[in-house]
């Protein structure tokens, strides 16, 4: 055992509640001692479930162990705790890219670049993924299955075409998004025919948390909905479950109050659909 690992192990043994597990886990990972690294990191993540660094470390180790589904889940947990976490955004982008979903990879890298525009590795990765997107041709239609069956488990959207069957307009103009900014159901196709679903979903990551924070700190309890009156349309955001956010878009010809009613109906449909999925 090398001196630094011994010293870190001693520190952790002397004070099991310390954050030395992060350094120890990372050192072991870099040395290729992945099983030991995983035990240390998993123990730390169990002790500190609210610490994004711990989930990030678990994800890096699992990625090294080629457990891509596990790494995806761990990075998703890190992102839930810290939506701006660049390492998790880059990690998930990498997994999407490996799974053949260059567009989703691009979305995550763009978010990472917004958070840290000075990171040259993000710029390089963006360039590489953009090349892939350009050569791969137009994106698949909304709701199409992921191109590679080896895609990370959370990346494979549940079967669409069923969530909003009973809602006026069906899937188009409704977008159900999970806490990590990933599309669960619905579609948002723009006037020029391009599919903005994944881009908008990514932008909504953390919106539910931020709305909840605002109403809580202002003494207004939990949040129900957010209505946005734009010059070219009406948007209503609602929260069918604690972990999801639903976006409903209609043009300005439909009064905002009616868009609100439509959003309530869509939220009920989304809740039922999510319960069916288990």
């Amino acid at each position, binding site marked *: 055992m090398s001196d630094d690992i011994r010293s870190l192990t001693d520190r952790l043994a002397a004070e099991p509640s310390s954050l030395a597990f992060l350094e120890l886990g990372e050192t072991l990972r870099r040395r290729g001692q992945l099983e030991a690294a995983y035990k240390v990191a998993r123990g730390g993540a169990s002790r500190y479930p609210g610490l994004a660094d711990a989930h990030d470390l678990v994800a890096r180790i699992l990625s090294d162990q080629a457990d891509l589904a596990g790494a995806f889940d761990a990075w998703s947990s890190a992102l839930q705790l810290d939506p701006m976490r660049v390492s998790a955004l880059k990690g998930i982008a990498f997994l999407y890219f490996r799974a053949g979903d260059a567009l989703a990879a691009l979305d995550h890298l763009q978010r990472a670049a917004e958070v840290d525009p000075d990171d040259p590795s993000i710029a390089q990765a963006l360039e590489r993924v953009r090349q892939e997107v350009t050569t791969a041709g137009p994106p698949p239609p909304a709701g199409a299955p992921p191109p590679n069956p080896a895609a990370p488990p959370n990346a494979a959207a549940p079967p669409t075409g069923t969530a909003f069957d009973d809602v006026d307009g069906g899937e188009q103009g409704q977008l159900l998004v999970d806490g990590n900014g990933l599309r669960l159901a619905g579609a948002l196709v723009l006037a020029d025919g391009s599919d903005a679903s994944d*881009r*908008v979903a990514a932008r909504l990551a953390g919106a539910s948390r931020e*709305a909840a924070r*605002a109403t809580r700190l202002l003494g207004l309890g939990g949040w129900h909905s957010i209505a*946005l*009156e*734009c010059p070219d349309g009406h948007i209503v955001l609602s929260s069918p479950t604690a972990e999801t956010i639903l*976006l409903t878009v209609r043009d300005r010809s439909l009064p905002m109050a009616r868009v609100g009613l439509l959003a309530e109906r869509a939220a009920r449909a989304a809740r039922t659909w999510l319960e069916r999925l288990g």
Partner: protein
Amino acid sequence: MSPTDAALDRVTRVPGVRGALLVTGSDGLVVAEQLMDGVDGRAAAALTASLVGRLSRAAESAGMQPPAFVHLRGDAGSVLAAPAPGDLVLVAVVGPDANVGLARLEMLEAAGRLD
């Protein structure tokens, strides 16, 4: 009365409005405020500006222009926001029984006059 005070005055006169503020959109800092006791102006400014910024980016991703009015509805009241020229946002914190429709009209009118 300055245009800012006039804007806040007409919003706070609407029944159910607990307070109105003019805040900077990018910094989330209070420029001017008229608040009832118990309304945390600094928190309202920071949290609302941040949320409006995020929602504007989401709207832009959806191919739409930034919102002219935002209504965040909570269990015990609402936060209303009307972006104004010059990176300003007019914000109101209202109770559950407030006349939101009237508050909206006053805010849109007041925000337009801040040009």
